[in-house]
């Protein structure tokens, strides 16, 4: 089932790219579309961060991943590169698990 979802999602993502290059421009020039589309990644990424950090198996939890997120947040504020942010988050979780 993962394969089917991979292929369907990849095809749809490609179709979106191709649609932007192919469909008549006026379809996208509606101010509501221009306004809503950039808000989607903001809302979805924030929701992903919240659910990935504070849930486990469908339940709300609070564990070392919250500390990992906080450290990643500091790295972001310090304008660290992408990879440093990720390594900082992962290393925090790993070290805290080692310590406790």
């Amino acid at each position, binding site marked *: 089932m993962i394969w089917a*979802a991979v292929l369907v999602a*990849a095809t749809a993502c490609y179709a979106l790219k191709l649609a*932007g290059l192919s469909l008549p421009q006026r379809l996208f020039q509606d101010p509501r579309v221009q306004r809503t589309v950039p808000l989607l990644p903001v809302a979805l*990424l924030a929701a992903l*961060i919240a659910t990935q950090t504070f849930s486990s198996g469908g339940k709300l939890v609070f564990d070392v991943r919250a500390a990992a997120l906080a450290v*990643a947040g500091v790295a972001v504020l310090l304008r660290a590169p992408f990879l440093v942010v990720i390594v900082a988050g992962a290393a925090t979780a790993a070290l805290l698990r080692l310590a406790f």
Partner: protein
Amino acid sequence: MITSNAKRGIVRDALGIGVATGAYAVSFGAISVTAGLSIAQTCALSVLMFTGASQFAFVGVIAAAGSPWAGAATAVLLGTRNALYALRLTTLLKVSGPRRLLAAQLVIDETTAMAIARDEPAQSRFAFYATGAAVFSLWNLGTLAGALATHALPDPKVLGLDAAPSAAFLALLAPRLRAREPLAIALAAAVVALLCLPFVPPGVPLLIVAVLVVFYGVFSR
């Protein structure tokens, strides 16, 4: 026309972006295999989907025990912005026929940013393809390296790789929060997602958030 000097500068920038995203792809490969995808599925995502935030979301939802279809829906919703990027690029690239099929796959944050940063259409086009080629090769190479390395690990959780997706999403989100409205929307989305999390299957809170933000975008103001 485009001077060889300008070309050199563009290629240098493109390689720089390619190396940075390639390193980022190593973490994608690692996170994806940790989430339970096979090496082939991980690499297929990077070749066929080729849009970072969507790929991270897809494997992130699966890692959180969500259904692959919830992951797919979230990935596609995150991919909608590429349609608007492509729209902006249409007048710059002026592609048609089979070439448009190739160019479409390269429409992502990085190539769009590089193309619209140039004043000359010829330079824009060159920047688009140079960045696209660099990022596509190194993104896929990095994915494979990350997937292979993680596959060899006995327990990726020891390295804290289960905490890596949130950090990745934060790094992707931060540059989009420079105004008050997106910041408020991000906070509201996080709260709504957590509030409905105990009551619906994993992955579904994201879709609820997506529906709400579309309503907000369409009907506010």
